[in-house]
């Protein structure tokens, strides 16, 4: 069983967790806006996403994720994402 974290560890855990979450929120927002740009035509003829847009979105998210991992490796960031 792991020892209880010290005061310093605890502050570091909070601080890293906060940055990690900010990072993920920002990634999600950039991903959303980028895939909106790439997949939704800006004429807005109706308010539903059609089938073409939906599959474009799924592939856009998948590719964005792969680019994130690829760039992470190049930056020397070894953990997934």
């Amino acid at each position, binding site marked *: 069983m*792991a020892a*209880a*974290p010290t005061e310093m560890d*605890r502050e570091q*855990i*909070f601080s890293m*967790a*906060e940055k*990690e*979450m*900010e990072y*993920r*929120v920002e990634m*999600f*927002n950039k*991903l*959303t*806006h980028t*895939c*909106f740009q790439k*997949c*939704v035509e*800006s004429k*807005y*003829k*109706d*308010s*539903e*996403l059609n089938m073409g*847009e*939906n599959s474009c*979105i*799924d592939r856009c*998210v*998948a590719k964005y*994720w792969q680019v994130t991992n690829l760039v992470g490796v190049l930056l020397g960031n070894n953990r997934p*994402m």
Partner: protein
Amino acid sequence: MDKSMMGDLNSLNQADQQRMAAMIDQLQIRDSLRMYNNLVERCFTDCVDNFKRKTLDKQEETCVTRCAEKFMKLSMRVGLRFAELNQGAATQD
């Protein structure tokens, strides 16, 4: 934002878990306000180009409404796919 991303929450005691949950709540409030601002900016930029009057005409209003509704649907879909990828549940093409 996905609360499940904080897998190591369990190694913390109860007071710390509460503090972490409060932090997550704060980030979610800030995030939803930002999303609101970004959505307004995008739909305004895409839909409003005529400045001869100071009120939105019917066509602009329809465009903004559709833009916002499409964005929210897309955002939900992206959230689902994103969660699947976070869980390593992505399937092949």
